[in-house]
């Protein structure tokens, strides 16, 4: 059993690796964060939930500061905080009705998402609203109607008075919550690990034969999405190389190796070719609360060109990229990186007299996006606020 000192060492190690960009990419960062937070919950000494919440917020704050542009870190921290509060609330309501703690069994992610959307609103943790509880390995969580049916509360108002009072305190002594919280965290980690498969499984519903699909840059999600569809459908892909990073080249190589007919075009030909493209499928770096995207530079061009040709824009992303932050200023999430790929030092005397711009990200406004395909199914941009309500708490928006 590792002690708190080892835990601090682990936290420092992840913070350093994030700062040095040794962990790159939203997915790997999210997975590492979730694993570290699981360690925090299991190792750290706490007997009151508010202590745990403050601890997680503390660790989360350090991680967010290490790589501020990587919004996925903050998202995972917020998910964990919400998860802890939910477990606490359900525990409180259980003890209110005088029952011993039950083991939770949250439904698996690879259950059909259609059921989730139709019957129960919270897609991750579907709960039946039984008034009885029962324990056992394959049991479904029991909860009183008021406090744990999160979506119902939000529909009907601010929630029942008793539930809210109890959740504000977080000071009940709950030693027995630890295994529950850890198993919930494990569900989160499983969801992250199965992310690509869940999204790729929806591929057949969105691609028909002989389509010409355009994609931008390199996204592992989109790659798996297209490769899964290519097993049964015949279509062609046009990849826009995103100079100066040339991510499009890697994507095209990988797709053509899977046997998909791929054409690489330069960024300048995007508008020219767009009139023959049936749909645009792309990944993103982050999704903001209004449905806007922060994605690789060049995406705004593609999305605007698609809008002008009335071509649908489909964004494949995992829920861990959904952030509750608003883009009050378009540039607040952008980075200008080294201009060397644009104009290198070989052009010596020229670079002294010229400003060279090389933005890394682009902001795409939500009007340009038609559909988000997430591991929980397809959603229009207007639905994202519901997903944010279900997965994050408003007090966690600033970590």
């Amino acid at each position, binding site marked *: 059993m590792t002690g708190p000192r080892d835990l601090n060492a682990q936290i420092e190690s992840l913070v350093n690796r994030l700062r040095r960009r040794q962990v790159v990419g939203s997915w790997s960062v999210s997975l590492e964060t979730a694993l570290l937070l699981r360690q925090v919950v299991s190792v750290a000494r706490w007997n009151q939930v508010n202590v745990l919440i403050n601890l997680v917020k503390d660790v989360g704050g350090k991680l967010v500061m290490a790589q501020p542009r990587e919004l996925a870190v903050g998202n995972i921290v917020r998910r964990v905080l919400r998860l802890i509060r939910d477990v606490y609330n359900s525990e409180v309501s259980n003890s209110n009705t005088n029952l011993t703690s039950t083991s939770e069994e949250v439904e698996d992610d690879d259950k059909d998402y259609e059921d989730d959307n139709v019957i129960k609103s919270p897609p991750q943790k579907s709960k039946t609203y039984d008034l009885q509880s029962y324990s056992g390995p394959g049991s479904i969580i029991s909860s009183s109607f008021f406090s744990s049916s999160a979506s119902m509360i939000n529909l009907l108002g601010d929630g029942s008075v008793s539930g809210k009072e109890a959740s504000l305190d977080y000071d009940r002594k709950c030693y027995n919550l630890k295994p529950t919280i850890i198993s919930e965290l494990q569900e989160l980690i499983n969801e992250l690990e199965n992310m690509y498969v869940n999204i790729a499984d929806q591929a057949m519903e969105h691609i028909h034969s002989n389509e010409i699909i355009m994609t931008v840059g390199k996204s592992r999600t989109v790659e798996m999405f297209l490769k899964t569809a290519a097993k049964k459908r015949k279509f062609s892909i046009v990849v826009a190389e995103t100079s100066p990073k040339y991510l499009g080249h890697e994507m095209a190589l990988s797709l053509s190796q899977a046997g998909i007919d791929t054409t690489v075009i330069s960024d300048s030909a995007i508008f020219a070719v767009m009139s023959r493209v049936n749909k645009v499928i792309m990944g993103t770096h982050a999704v903001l609360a209004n449905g806007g995207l922060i994605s690789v*530079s060049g995406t705004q061009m593609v999305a605007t060109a698609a809008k002008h040709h009335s071509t649908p824009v489909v964004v494949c992303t995992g829920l861990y990229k959904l952030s509750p932050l608003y883009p009050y200023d378009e540039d607040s999430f952008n980075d200008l990186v080294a201009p060397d790929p644009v104009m290198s030092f070989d052009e010596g005397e020229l670079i002294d007299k010229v400003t060279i711009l090389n933005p890394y990200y*682009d902001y795409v406004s939500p009007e340009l996006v038609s559909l988000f395909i997430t591991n929980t199914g397809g959603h229009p941009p207007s639905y994202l606020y519901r997903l944010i309500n279900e997965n994050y708490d408003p007090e966690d928006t600033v970590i």
Partner: protein
Amino acid sequence: MENEGNKKSIKERTKAKHKEKQSKEMNESSNKQVAALFSHLEIAKGANASLASRDIHPAVLVIGLQFADFKICGANARCIATLTAFKKVIQDYKTPEGTTLSRHLPTHLSPQISYLVNSRPMSVGMGNAIRHLKLEISTMDIDLADDDAKLLLCEKIDNFIRDRITVADRVIVSYGLQKIQDGDVILTYARSSVVQALLLEAHAKGIQFKVIIVDSRPRLEGKGLLRCLVDAGISCTYAFLHAVGFVLKDVSKVFLGAHAFMSNGALYSRVGTAMVAMMAKEKNIPVIVCCETYKFAEKVQLDSFVMNEQGNPDEMVNISTTSTPKAGLLDGWLHKPDLKLLNLLHDLTPSKYITTVITEVGMIPCTSVPVILREYKQV
């Protein structure tokens, strides 16, 4: 003697067959890699002097090679180079026995023209210029002596270059100066000779403005413009096309050059122009095109597919921005069966994205292009 002759011809024949086979193989491999939508467009083959037959004038040979290698690039430059080369052809021309200059000269020029077209498809302006030249030749007075006729033709060519290109550019610049004010931030794309002249002239007049040059792969023509403007002392910013959304926030006007203007008001220009025009229009920034009237075409075109030019796809493999090439990941793309590279050279900007066109006859909306053409025809 006969045997030797036979042997020689056999050698020549086998050599020719081998060459044919080689070019066929090259064509086949390149055909495999052509994107299906563009299979009706030929891919640029690169400079190849062996394609020329014996009667190509050396001046034409030289510019043909320069066109194929993109050493002379840009509609105005190519047109002037072609007309200058044809001037030399006409000066060296001798009318053969039994025919007149006005009848034979066009047939003499035809193989030169087809050689140029083989090196690189002709631009619309070049086509108009050559049509004008042929018209002048056919309306030549038969009684005129050969030397006088040739002098007259050369004079007419000079007049064309002067009136429709050089002076037209100056008039366009003077109109364009009205559109540049102090404090403007002007965005331009790739390299247009007219826009370059306009910006240099505006700076010389003392107008305080900034220029943002947006450039794109694989030609990177904007760099040449950047050097030219920086040498003149204009404060410039340089970015690639992916940054155009980021950069347009501060821009007040967009100036673009043209390769040709279609009769339906659509602008045919360097690939990427349509993207810049569209993004600017989205943000309600005026898009001003500078175009001489000799580039107006009788054709109508709706998309960038039916008529276009494909450059050498291997240009996309090189990812370095300097003159030393550095092969990127796509090296060896020919051997990967499902991978194709598309290197388009031009694209079509629909008229709704263009605010106004500055020509030597004034500032017109792009829908007035067929009206101007009609005026010229009546003259």
